[in-house]
């Protein structure tokens, strides 16, 4: 090490000198040849508020000017950040309703030559869903009642739930429905009339 530091007399004022310049603008002291780990500070000030971050980010741009070609992925440093390994293993991607993938389920219609797929996330409730199905397959569903199912139509919308059972659409709360629905089938004819609301 090039150190000129002694402790008996010299206070080594330079090392603790208060400077007005930005850190990193001094030549020799900033050179750290002994830090073997390739960690770069490519951090930009975060956009939280407006004006401060704008001016700060301009300054940061100037500082980081020579670093713009840095790849976006961070190089990982051993043991940094200091998190125990059992915590790392349990990280899950954040589960949110803002999942852009949507909940796509197959919909089959008795007698139709091919199936369709719909995104259940697009609908806020049963009425919207049923309207969309009516439009898609060109049929009418009829009125839902808890006692009698779908009256006034020879069709009944059904779905297969996570247990593999075929259920009538509309019996359970909407949120419960979209989380348990695996696929849908629009039943027709006598089969349809056989289904009622289960107790």
């Amino acid at each position, binding site marked *: 090490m090039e150190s000129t530091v002694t402790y008996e007399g010299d206070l080594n004022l330079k090392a603790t000198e208060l400077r007005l310049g930005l850190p990193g603008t001094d030549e020799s002291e900033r050179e750290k040849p002994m830090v073997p780990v390739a*960690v770069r*500070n490519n951090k930009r000030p975060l956009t939280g508020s407006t004006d401060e971050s704008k001016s700060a980010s301009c300054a940061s741009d100037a500082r980081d000017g020579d670093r713009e070609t840095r790849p976006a992925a961070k190089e990982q440093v051993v043991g940094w950040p200091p998190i125990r390994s059992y915590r790392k293993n349990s990280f899950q991607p954040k589960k949110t309703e803002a999942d852009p993938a949507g909940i796509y389920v197959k919909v089959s219609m008795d007698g139709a030559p091919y199936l369709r797929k719909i995104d259940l996330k697009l609908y806020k409730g049963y009425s919207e869903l049923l309207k969309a199905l009516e439009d898609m397959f060109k049929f009418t569903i009829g009125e839902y009642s808890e006692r009698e199912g779908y009256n006034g139509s020879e069709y009944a919308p059904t779905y297969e739930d996570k247990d593999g059972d075929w259920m009538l659409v509309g019996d359970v709360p909407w949120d419960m429905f979209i989380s348990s629905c695996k696929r849908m089938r629009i039943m027709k004819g006598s089969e349809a009339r056989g289904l009622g609301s289960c107790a």
Partner: protein
Amino acid sequence: MSYSFPEEVLEHVFSFIHSYKDRNAISLVCKSWYEIERWCRRQIFIGNCYAVSPRITIRRFPELRSVSLKGKPHFADYNLVPQGWGANMYPWVAAMAQAYPWLEELRLKRMVVTDDTLELISRSFKNFKVLVLSSCEGFTTDGLAAIAANCRNLRELDLRETEVDDPSGNWLSHFPESCTSLVSLNFACLEGEVSFSALERLVGRCTNLRTLRLNQAVPLDKLANLLRRAPQLVDLGTGIYSAEVRPELYSKLTGAFAGCKELKSLSGLWEVVPAYLPAIYPVCAGLTSLNLSYATIQSADLIKLISHCRNLQRLWVLDYIEDSGLESLAASCKDLQELRVFPSDPYGAEENVTLTEQGLVSVSEGCPKLHSVLYFCRQMTNAALFAIARNRPNMTRFRLCILEPRTPDYLTLQPLDAGFGAIVEHCKGLRRLSLSGLLTDRVFEYIGTHAKRLQMLSVAFAGDSDLALHNVLSGCKSLRKLEIRDCPFGDKALLANASKLETMRSLWMSSCSVSFGACKKLGQKMERLNVEVIDERGPLDSKPNESFVERLYAYRSVAGPRLDKPSFVWTVDENSAMRLS
């Protein structure tokens, strides 16, 4: 002065004194007090297993019932200590099996514990009651099965954050049907399934069970059954807190929680499904400790839950709580003493949640009893640190981790020296401090000047020169543990403060500028300091004195150099040469 009181009277008086410090003070009064004290000492704490040997321990304290032992240095938690470094428990147990047949308690941290060791424990100590393994490794569930089967009076089996291989559910079934003594069972860190029927029967017959921490393999409906069987629980770790939304399970769970009138501590909560959170509400008012650090739920759900927990003293949570959640916490939980906020996406380059310095400032403002903080974030300012310091002069533990190393104050682009300086200046009782962000030598000047009660300091990617290290070593009167990584500190400060190191438990320096030659000098100069060079790059004795070592671990010891060194550890012996293992 032994003619003043009969020994029995002194012994009786000493039996009321439990703190290690006081016990040590007693033993220094005079020779006869030393003798009496050592014969009636029942519990001992050894902060560094290599500071002393089993033989020395047994020779001085022949009647121990409870031993607490710590092994690897703290940075081993972050994979900075190579595998095989040491801290083997077996030699200790082998020696104690002879000397302490009535041993009741072992509390181990960062030790390597093998199945053989566990088996030996289970067979050697007839009255064994308490086994706590914290951050340990090296054993499988076979070892646990031996403990379960053979320790007839087992009260506590606590596996904290410990890695266990090849988990199989059978170990739990090894508790005999006659076992009713369990007070505390924690297997949260195991990965495999346990036999649910065995678990239910065990919980049912151990009517004194106060702590039960399940692992992720225990589903929600089983949790409800267990709670029904153990409504007296004070400390619960749930299993996985997720299931399809089913009304009958929900009401079963709510009813089970409602029956737990004594519950003070809640943890586990992996993979939380928000719909099931309200089932916990019946116990929230009584909770003093809540660990949500595995619950990947959003701020709104977190706020709802926390707002029910008015008596909370300790909260561990992920940064999904965001600044808004922390503001809410500050308003609801006026008894809060400890807050830990963990990062949900530590390796991501971009911010994924709105958790900033503001959240911590809010809590420091709103919670007058807050004194212990661990906070992972992506940005910080000196102003925020000033505010925290002024708000909370009662701070005792302050660990800040800004995820990107060397991050400056994002508003001023200055180093965070002044902010941390304010912390050490205002918080006169500060015992533990972890630094991060952009820091120059200046912050270490502040620390050396003000942090007179500081016992443990963790430093990474900070400082400019040896002056920094010198300031810490010469200024921090109470320093016991110093751990440093990736800082340009080196020989001069070390050698100038060599005698300080003998007043501390240990010093760790990795990826710094410490030369091989300086390590040799240090080891030669200080007789009761074990200076270890931990370096995996090959034989060091052929390297020049000026070459830098990968890691230095120096600790005081009365046991002399280690005899169980692996090939990548070098120590200095009395013959002034670097000796290979």
